[in-house]
């Protein structure tokens, strides 16, 4: 039996990795994948807590987060495709018409 805290540590590590990758990577698709990793880290945390409380709420929440992530992916990939058609690149440093 693996202790539940291991899962929590794994989820925290995944979350931090996702957050770091979001800032380090310069490719729009990779940045988006980093965000997906962060969301799935949250999913793992939810399931672990649901298990430790032996309650079903946390597992239901995961269903919702997965569907939300899918909706985000559909819109996001469509936007990235639009960018690619206009600029022929998906490097984040090439998207620089406006200075923030």
């Amino acid at each position: 039996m693996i202790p539940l805290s291991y899962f929590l540590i794994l989820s925290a590590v995944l979350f931090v990795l996702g957050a770091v990758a979001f800032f380090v990577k310069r490719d729009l698709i990779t940045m988006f994948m980093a965000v997906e990793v962060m969301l799935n880290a949250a999913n793992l945390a939810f399931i672990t807590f649901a298990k430790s409380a032996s309650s079903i709420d946390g597992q239901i929440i995961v269903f919702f987060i997965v569907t939300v992530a899918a909706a985000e992916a559909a819109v996001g990939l469509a936007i990235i495709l639009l960018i690619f058609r206009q600029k022929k690149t998906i490097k984040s440093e090439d998207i620089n018409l406006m200075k923030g």
Partner: protein
Amino acid sequence: MNSFSALIPLLIIVFASLCIMILEAFLKKENKDYLAYISIIFLVVCGFFLVRAWNKDFSYFNGNLFLDNLSLFFSFIFLITTFLVILISMKYISLQGVNCGEYYSLLLLALSGMLIMVSSGDLLVIFLGLEVLSISSYSLAGLRRKDEKSSEAAIKYFLLGCFASAFLVYGIALLYGATYSTDIASIINHFQSGESLGLMALIGLGMFVIGFGFKIAVVPFHMWTPDVYEGAPTPITAFFSVGPKAVGFAVLLRVLYPYLKNVQDSSKAIFLLLCIISVLTMVVGNLIALRQTNLKRILAYSSIAHAGYLLIAILAQDNASLVFYLTVYIFMNIGAFAAVIALGKKDKEYLELEDYAGIGFKYPWIGATFSVFLLSLAGFPPTGGFLAKFYVFSAAVRQDLVPLVIIGVLASLISVFYYLRIIVYMYMKEPSYEVDINIDNPGLFLVLFLCLYGVLQLGIFPGNVLILIKQAVTALL
């Protein structure tokens, strides 16, 4: 009271959105103007049901969806926001080549997301509402498909928005782990009973605040704001600058007010976090706004700075002044954006400060109303902006937050400079070139008039609205 009536306003808006989407697919190109009128009719019907539910405390889905007075008030001002945005869009979308029915459909979908967020006390439902709002916002930002700036705004908004959502979800997960509940009331109860807050709960709450910090655009989570505001179609910018911001504050109010009031937290970590964010937001937002020359960017930084003042109201735990500030803010900001939109013609918008030279005399109505909105944003009497700031700052003084108030007043003094600079350009500069605009735009002028009325009414006779707001915030006690 458990009643189906709690669901009706939401159902109307979602149904309206679906209806418009289907009609968009089946209507001929020349009949698409009707979609705006259809959505306005649905908004009016929804408003009627909201007004009838006042003081009734309807709830549904075992109390997961409720319409107390606070959510009714917020829902109603969101309805007004969407109504005004649709009015300013009617001419704009055909002039600027965004003429598609999905525009209204997505706008109504975003509205439904905001309605869900303000009428639920469950963090998961709030998150789902936020995603409905965000995903439709991403597509709205990119609707000008031919324009590279618009797509750039969409991708920036999308990536940062997703990033913020991930923070939010992880925060909710940690809160769920600390309390085994996603219901705000039981989370607060759990915190109250405990001796001290666990580290996990504190981090969870902090991440929740950070996630919403992205949505309400506070420094240091504001990087996306100016770019998205500049790139998105201007009526959508008006919507972004008030809608997501107001709804974010509504949710923060629901979470943080009971937390700050009831929970004994010796470390005061969340309080300090909010103080730092508030100070940074006011100072940085106003300082960067000084060097901008694009009207949309100036207004973007001004909206960032306003989030700082609003955070003071949350810290002072004065709900009435926060809601009043948001109400005034909606009118003055949409008014200001409407005036910016008024200066445009087919496939051309005038957004640079130089374009505004001499506008005050050439188009006296636009110049005069724009000046009133800018003075209100800067906080001059007798406009609503002055009263709103006055209430917030005096509430903060009563709560012994004097240093914050001093910084707030100094920051709004800085802001006076860039607001007045636009007025100076409009009235005291000689135009170096001809600016030719499309004046035939009744919807837009109706919005200018309505916002002018709102700002002056709230500034001179705020009594009735204040009574409503007092009734609304009793829902939180």
